[in-house]
């Protein structure tokens, strides 16, 4: 085991897979010479060369579109969309092409494609550079959406994604790259489409992923001081969604809080709470509470921005509220 950062974990996954399989290559803006705007591919260009670490023009549609074409020829491209905010410029290729080609052509087209991108706000980058629209991409059948919450999962899940023959959107978080965690040595993969109870407890269930998970773990450490023992489920994959551990936990605690950085309306929490009500209605002892971003484009001003983003204290308040509800 080694304690490394999220950035390091992702970087190692990419490196190891590129070493392992020569069909794997990276393309995107500033991935090569710059080393990636989050420094994830630092050193890759020098080691793997420009054929395998391809700097593209600023043209998201063709980044994803060409990655799709390359995948169709049998390669395993990893297209990087610098931030998920720019993914909208490639929306057609992500949800109309990548998600659907395999189905529309009756399985004749195989797309072993990974789209790596970054969600999240909190660095005063302004509304159009700070979104967490993960739920939107999870809406489309045919596209898998993965969003790790720990370095261990990030490495394992990215490897799985690269080795998978499905088109997968791999969402990293802008303010989690320096989060550290224990990562096993050697080669390992983490299954896609499997949630995990990452903190056992008994008083309530907190369901989250990515940044929300980091906040929830911190909140749980605070809550225990008040005698509240929270169980936390890390979704890890948004589509396909694994409700198993969620329901299992909910049946035990009967009260849930769902935490996400995206907006509440039509978000991840909306889906999860619906499913809990559908699958565990008789176990509901209080209405499910969703902690999410306030319904506003994220402002530049630091205080305003933080006021809009979900915080640890919001989770604590929600936990106490759900226990009283």
């Amino acid at each position, binding site marked *: 085991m080694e304690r490394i950062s999220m950035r390091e974990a992702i970087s190692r996954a990419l490196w190891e897979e590129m070493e392992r399989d020569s069909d794997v290559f990276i393309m995107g803006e500033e991935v090569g010479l710059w080393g990636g705007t989050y420094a994830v591919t630092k050193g890759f260009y020098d080691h793997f060369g420009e054929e395998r670490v391809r700097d593209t023009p600023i043209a998201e549609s063709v980044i994803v579109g060409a990655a799709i074409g390359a995948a169709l020829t049998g390669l395993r491209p990893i297209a990087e969309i610098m931030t998920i905010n720019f993914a909208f410029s490639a929306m057609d290729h992500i949800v109309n092409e990548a998600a659907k080609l395999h189905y529309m052509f009756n399985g004749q087209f195989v797309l072993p494609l990974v789209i790596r991108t970054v969600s999240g706000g909190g660095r005063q980058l302004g509304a159009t550079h700070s979104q967490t629209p993960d739920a939107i991409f999870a809406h489309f059948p045919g596209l898998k959406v993965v969003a790790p919450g720990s370095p261990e999962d990030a490495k394992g899940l990215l490897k799985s994604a690269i080795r998978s023959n499905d088109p997968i959107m791999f969402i990293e978080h802008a303010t989690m790259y320096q989060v550290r965690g224990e990562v096993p040595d050697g080669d390992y993969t983490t299954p896609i489409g499997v949630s995990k109870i990452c903190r056992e407890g008994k008083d309530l269930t907190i369901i989250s992923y990515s940044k929300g998970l980091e906040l929830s773990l911190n909140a749980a450490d605070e809550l225990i001081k008040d005698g509240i023992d929270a169980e936390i489920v890390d979704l890890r994959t948004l589509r396909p969604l694994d409700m198993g551990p969620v329901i299992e936990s909910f049946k035990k605690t*009967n009260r849930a809080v769902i935490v996400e950085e995206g907006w509440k309306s039509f978000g991840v929490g909306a889906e999860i709470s619906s499913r809990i009500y559908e699958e565990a*209605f*008789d*176990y*509901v*002892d*209080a209405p499910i509470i969703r902690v999410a971003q306030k319904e506003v484009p994220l402002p530049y001003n630091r205080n305003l921005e933080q006021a809009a983003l979900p915080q640890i204290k919001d989770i604590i308040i929600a936990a106490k509220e759900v226990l*009283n*509800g």
Partner: protein
Amino acid sequence: MADIITMPKLGFDMAEGTLVRWVKREGDIIEKGDVIAEIETDKATVEVESNYSGVLRQILVEQGSILPVNQPMAIIGTEDEDISSISLIKDELKVPKTKRNQEGKEKTKKVEDHASGQVMDTSKSRFLISPLARKLAKEYGIPLENLKGSGPSGRIVKNDIDLFIKDQGISSVQNDKDQIVPLKKLRMIIGKRMTSSKKSIPHFYITRNFGVDKLFDLRTQFNDAMDGKAKISVNDLVVKATAVALRRFKNLNASINDNDQVIQHGSINIGIAVSVEEGLMTVVCKDTDTKSLIQISRETKEMAERARAGKVKPSDIEGSTFSISNLGMYDVDEFIAIINPPEAAILALGTAKEVPVIENGSIQIGMVMKATISVDHRISDGAEAARFMQHLGEILQSPIALFVDI
């Protein structure tokens, strides 16, 4: 001129009743005395007879409605008379409360089965309760009205169920071998009444041995004389004896009201406990002290039959002023009964047994029955109750007192 059928007052303390089902439909021809509906009071379900003849022109309330006494329920008139002015009453009626019903599904099913064309969802609850708590309450057969909700707006949550269970001592550790039996309606009613009785009435008890040799002799004589045409039991004799004895103890044939007044009842109506499938019912023999033994015997038998068949009439079960409970057929030495409010007392009879008795200094075999009277200490006291028991004993020893005033 059309007549209005209203929710009848079926007992002096009845404030409201539930219209369980309409037996007749709009348009049916009604003869005076026809059963037109079934009503549930807090004592039992009873059939309501129409006091008028005519056509049932309009039904004003739906099955399942809880109505205060005297609330109009239906209109009976001739086939074609104009009842528009009267039927306006329907709009003026307050929306009747729907029955709080834990066995909602069963109730609804029952209503549907009778196929009067009106199906009412009586399972709507007035309770705020979480899905989990509702499920648990159903599983444990806990009536929702027994629960106090600690959640927002008084919502009942799991914790409330847990506390209730702990309180009641119900094992919350459910075993595969445990069987959950939901409480039947009657049991719940009995439970409520007895709980209330024990909580609010200061009971005291007096036990006495009664020599009943002469009583048994009288019974034998009587039945022989009737030669099968009629038959009386020892219980019938005890019932009459008690009624006669009460003539001199008006305080034990009484009730206390909210104004701290004791109402000494003008009639002596003995309530006799009858065992029915779902529990216990008390059928009432009116003016017992004036009735003949044959009358008492026959009435008691008929009422008991009706009770067991679930066809009890309101008059069968209302108006008792003193109750008797007899467990003599079960080889019981003695027992203590709980007073049926608003009565002042209840007499519990044990089995009549052959036991050694001392008579004139020597041991004889005698037939002795132990009886215990439970009395409301707000109305009477030990001395009076003891004197009553003494007087009753005298009557039982000399049964001629049943026929003449000694």
